[in-house]
């Protein structure tokens, strides 16, 4: 009986119920996609971690003929780091192979990850350096964006005998340690925190949806209550009705998401690449998620209806219904402050839980804003109702009367502003550039220290021939630094220094020159020795009066053209702050997702608000208020609470951001914060116009059918 009644209530043809159906379809679709999207991200990480573990090799405890020799080096391109894994069989027997590799690349060639293949295609310099023999398949690459390659030393070169070479006995074992993981635990924690934070917009959208046309539904429930239906049965009826309305949106979202994720090569709204299928959810998990959400809708509806039936009279004053929940009203701000204090304390002590506490405090803060907002709107409404102007007086009385229903859309806006400000601060923290190119010391010359494995006697000659007009001094890595086969005079000449500096002897590095070198290549200890002692060089100090970027590029080209094994370069460029694109992709995606979902939530709320006030507007029109008067009431009713929520959430956002920036020692990104606030205000202005126009259109439609609900 209850279920039949719920079905009839849910699919009623009344205009308010039509709107409730549309709001449920849209909102539940969006919330389900957000929920499944969050689950897909977890699933993505599980898959990537599994592939990452499979890629790790176990270092051989005793040599075996099937061991694979490996060595690690890094190359930089386009501000990104590329991991190069040098591989070579230990014997003539086929070695163990990492996943994704069917055979080792031929000598002098490499097999690259898909993302690196794309980068090489775009980068001319990399194309000239790397001889690509193939692309790894997805099973051997943890993440679609990972930049790495398996490189085989060229003919006549080997990894054998080098101290940095490791022997790998097998891949994918539980004790795998090499190469180092490409995953960063801090990033994962951040992304999971971000996904957790998306729960708040989801909750807000769901609240807006559950409240769509709620006054009509409440009237029907009040009627049934008057007929003697028990409170619990009414709550169950309301929960059934909400569940029936939510089902199509949830099913459509689940089906669409399942279909979409099979083909997605990026996480939606981010630039984070994924392999097609990585985001897809196994059917039982997706079904479980959808069912959990459906149960959530049922429970929320059951709880909220029981709550309102327990505290309100049949046609009671709406604002008084909520005043009973004072405990909740105080609990959230207190929890926000407490978790924030814990976060600050953990940050101060360098403890790991700091970020988790920060996320928790941000979530509580997001929940606090709507609660404080309701009380603030009521107070401002009461103030406005003291105004001399009739329009402001009436708008104020209406705001003070029902702040919850009239301002529900703006709670979503508040969360957008709060999260927006917090995320732009976090973005600034992640993208802070401590050293830029202009900060690098400008001397008369640039210097690069090149190092490599398996040195050959002709390497220096080959390098010199490929670097005409550039000084290349041979060197050798020793236990306590690098020995350079060059005299002080030759070095001083390159640095345009006074030769009298070298008065202490040809192989003594004067302090001023040593300081110059430390400034240019970092703190690697250098010693000058006679050139004969460096007959086979595995390092070279390259000096030229050209820009460091130009020198670095030319040294890299020469090293690769010479066929050096695992070449690495030390220079001023290492000091440049490298951005953290992985986190940035997630932050930007988070901002987009929050803005989009809460934007849709706010839109649903606004339409609901317009429909909610239409009967009051109709009465005003019939009494004889002109369009201008009604429009002014609308403007005050929309603009005042909207600007108020921007102010409140901006204060809350800045309140979260200032300590964050102080702890991380970065400047508060005031321009970005102002931009967020300005965009919110512009959005509010536009929305106000839409609300007013939409209200007038609905008025015109309602006038044709003036029978009250």
């Amino acid at each position, binding site marked *: 009986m209850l279920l039949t009644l719920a079905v009839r209530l849910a699919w009623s043809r009344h205009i308010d119920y039509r709107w409730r159906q549309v709001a449920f379809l849209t909102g539940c679709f969006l919330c389900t996609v957000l929920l499944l999207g969050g689950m897909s991200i977890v699933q993505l990480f599980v898959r990537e971690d599994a592939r990452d573990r499979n890629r790790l090799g176990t270092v051989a405890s005793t040599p075996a003929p099937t061991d694979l020799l490996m060595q690690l080096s890094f190359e930089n391109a386009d501000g990104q780091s590329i991991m190069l894994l040098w591989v070579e069989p230990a014997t003539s027997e086929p070695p163990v192979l990492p996943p994704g590799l069917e055979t080792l690349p031929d000598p002098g060639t490499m097999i690259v990850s898909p993302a690196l293949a794309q980068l090489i295609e775009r980068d001319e310099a990399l194309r000239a350096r790397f001889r690509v023999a193939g692309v790894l398949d997805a099973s051997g690459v943890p993440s679609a964006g990972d930049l790495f390659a398996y490189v085989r030393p060229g003919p006549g070169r080997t990894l054998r005998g080098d101290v940095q070479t490791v022997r790998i006995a097998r891949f994918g074992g539980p004790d795998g340690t090499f190469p180092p993981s490409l995953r960063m635990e801090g990033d994962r924690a951040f992304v999971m925190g971000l996904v957790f934070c998306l729960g708040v917009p989801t909750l807000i959208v769901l609240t807006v949806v559950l409240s769509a046309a709620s006054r009509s539904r409440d009237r029907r429930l009040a009627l049934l209550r008057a007929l003697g239906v028990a409170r619990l049965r009414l709550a169950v009826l309301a929960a059934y009705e909400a569940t029936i309305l939510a089902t199509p949106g949830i099913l459509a979202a689940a089906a669409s998401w399942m279909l979409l994720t099979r083909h997605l090569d990026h996480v939606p709204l981010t630039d984070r690449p994924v392999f097609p299928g990585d985001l897809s959810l196994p059917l039982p998990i997706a079904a479980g998620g959808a069912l959990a959400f459906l149960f959530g809708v049922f429970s929320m509806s059951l709880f909220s209806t029981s709550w309102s039936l327990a505290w309100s*009279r049949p*046609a*009671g*004053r709406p604002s008084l219904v909520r005043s009973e929940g004072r405990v909740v009203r105080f609990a959230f701000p207190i929890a926000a402050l407490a978790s924030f204090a814990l976060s600050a304390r953990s940050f101060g002590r360098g403890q790991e839980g700091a970020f988790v506490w920060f996320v928790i405090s941000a979530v509580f803060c997001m929940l606090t804003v709507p609660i404080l907002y309701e009380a603030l709107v009521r107070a401002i409404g009461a103030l406005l109702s003291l105004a*001399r102007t*009739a329009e402001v*007086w*009436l708008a104020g*009385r*209406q705001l*003070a*009367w*029902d702040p919850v229903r009239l301002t529900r859309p703006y709670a979503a806006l508040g969360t957008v502003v709060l999260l927006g400000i917090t995320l732009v601060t976090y973005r600034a923290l992640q993208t802070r550039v401590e050293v830029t190119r202009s900060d690098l010391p400008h001397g008369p010359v640039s210097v690069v220290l090149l190092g490599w494995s398996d040195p050959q006697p002709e390497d220096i000659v080959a390098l010199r021939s490929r670097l005409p007009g550039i000084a290349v001094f041979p060197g050798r890595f020793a236990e306590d630094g690098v020995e350079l086969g060059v005299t002080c005079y030759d070095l001083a000449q390159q640095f345009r220094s006074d030769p009298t500096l070298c008065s202490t002897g040809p192989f003594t590095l004067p302090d001023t020159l040593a300081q110059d070198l430390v400034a240019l290549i970092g703190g690697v200890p250098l010693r000058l020795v006679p050139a004969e002692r460096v007959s086979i060089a595995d390092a070279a100090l390259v000096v030229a009066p050209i820009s460091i970027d130009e020198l670095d590029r030319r040294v890299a080209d020469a090293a690769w053209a010479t066929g050096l094994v695992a070449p690495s370069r030390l220079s001023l460029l290492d000091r440049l702050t490298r951005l953290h694109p992985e986190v940035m992709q997630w932050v930007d995606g988070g901002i987009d997702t929050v803005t989009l979902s809460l934007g849709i939530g706010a839109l649903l709320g606004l339409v609901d608000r317009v429909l909610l006030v239409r009967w*009051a507007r109709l*009465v005003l*029109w*019939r*009494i*004889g*208020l*002109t*369009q*201008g*008067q009604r429009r002014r009431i609308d403007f005050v009713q929309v603009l005042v609470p909207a600007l108020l929520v921007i102010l409140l959430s901006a204060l809350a956002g800045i309140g979260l951001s200032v300590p964050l920036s102080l702890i991380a020692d970065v400047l508060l990104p005031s321009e970005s914060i102002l931009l967020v606030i300005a965009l919110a205000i512009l959005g509010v202005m536009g929305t106000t116009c839409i609300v007013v126009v939409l209200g007038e259109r609905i008025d015109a439609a309602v*006038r044709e059918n*003036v029978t*009250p609900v």
Partner: protein
Amino acid sequence: MSAGLVVERLTFVTPERRLLDGVDLVVSPGTAVAIMGPSGSGKTTFLQCLCGIRRPTSGRVVIDGTAIWRLREDRRAAFRLARVGLVFQFGELLPELSAVENVMLPLRFLGWERSRAEQRAHQLLEELGLAHRATAHPEQLSGGEIQRVGIARALATAPALVLADEPTGMLDEMTARVVAQLLVSIAHQQGTIVIIATHDPIVAGTCDVTYRLRDGRLWPIAPEERQEISQCS
């Protein structure tokens, strides 16, 4: 410029039927008129055409010398605010305003000072026996009280014309009689034209003149017939 209400050849046609078919009516100030007729006969449409809410297909409505359908939308609304009082079946008070504030509403929008409007509203509520309920909100008022607050709101601006659409539809017999008598006495005491659309013979019986709306036209009901209907009911 003649005082009173003049309706000439008022017609309202919907795609399905002819609700009003050339209605003519002249009402002098201080007269209470009842329009009777079964549901769907066009009583509400007739009142809506009279006050400028629903545009008739043709015809003329002149209130105190002003042909209201010649006015533009906003001027017509302003005219309604100042010169026409409306009493609805469900009272249609704004829930967020107290009884006195609901009565003040049209006065505030006519530009009255708050204190002056409040004074006038209190005076009207007192006259209608609701002084003790001035600060109550609609949800705290009974059906009869809501209707009386609605009447006070309609009278606040001392209008030339008061239109009441089924004002007693939701009330018990005793309260209905009180409300009807109140409206008629207002017409007599203040020289206001009161037009009541009703299907309640008791209400009709209290008015000076009664018409029946049938086939889109107004047919006067003779006093004897009115008495008969009233007694039967």
